């Protein structure tokens, strides 16, 4: 076993999830560098699992109640979703126009023979684009979280 392989298996070994420990332990006995690495990993694991836990402030629920009372009622109208639809509308217009144009032109100029498939593909591309600059932002929107 090489040191890199040893290091990759180190966490599984510490958590007792390594099915066969023989090669791992044989390397451990022979390699002082990996002995130091494992000692540091074991210390890391022990400290991580014993970090002091911090308690929430005693008046938390009172503060939350105050903020709930002060917050405007949740708007029934979802502006973020509406904006996405408004932004999508012209794009869908382009898709419809493209498909219509595809029907009107000779078959050899159409990317796919099936206009439905073309529509689905374009729609999927639009879905992937999601009108947001990063996957993270699109994830926030999809989980209902907006700034």
């Amino acid at each position, binding site marked *: 076993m090489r040191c890199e392989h040893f*290091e*990759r298996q*180190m*966490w599984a070994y510490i958590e007792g999830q390594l099915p066969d420990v023989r090669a791992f332990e044989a390397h451990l006995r022979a390699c002082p560098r990996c002995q*130091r*690495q494992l*000692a*540091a*990993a074991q*210390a*890391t*694991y022990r*400290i*991580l*699992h*014993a*970090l*002091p*836990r*911090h*308690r*929430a*402030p005693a008046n*938390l*629920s009172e*503060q*939350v109640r105050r*903020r*709930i009372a002060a*917050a405007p009622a*949740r708007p029934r109208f979802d502006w973020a979703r509406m904006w996405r639809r408004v932004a999508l509308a012209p794009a869908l217009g382009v898709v419809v126009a493209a498909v219509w144009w595809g029907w009107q032109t000779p078959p050899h100029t159409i990317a796919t023979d099936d206009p439905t498939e073309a529509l689905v593909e374009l729609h999927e591309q639009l879905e992937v684009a999601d009108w947001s600059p990063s996957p*993270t932002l699109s*994830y*926030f929107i*999809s*989980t*209902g*979280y907006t*700034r």
Partner: protein
Amino acid sequence: MDTLSIEARLVERAKAQDEAAFEQIMRLYADRLYNYILRMVGNATDAEDLVQETFLRAYQGLPQFDGRASLGTWLYRIATNLCIDHQRRRARRVQTVSYSEGEDEEGEPAAWDFPDQQTPNPLEAALNRELEAVVEDAIDKLSPKLKTVLLLYDVEELSYEEIARVLGIPIGTVKSRLNHARTQIQKAVAAYLDDAPLSAQARGIK
């Protein structure tokens, strides 16, 4: 009745405007969420604000909560999104406003509750405290992606599956981020153990 069904009943009651049920949900999760958020953002003032915001959003989002995820998963997801957004805003502010070294924008030191630690001898206790500081410092330096997974798994003790649901990523990605995060911390601990005089003394007396 198991924890999940107790929570499901609490959620149903809270949805029906039962204030006591929402209060109970806050009591169940306040410490866990605060501990997680405080370690994510690194200062008590922001953590307090963000944990309040988490519960406010949860309250407002309750009508849409369909119970497909567990209550805990859902709350951690709201908290994680708020923390990441907060860190982004702070990163932008730091980039555009100030680079002055040593300036403390973290505010007052937190009044943290340290449980009594029973350790066999003062030298090891001192070494543990120093290692704890090394680990805390290394956690602070992790990227938000790695820090989130490490805190949820090793500190909050969520399962791989729960973390995958909180973050909306595959389980394989959770495991790989966890390995990277732990290894970064382990390297800091290894460097410390190689150099620290306390560590040499502690090893020497064993």
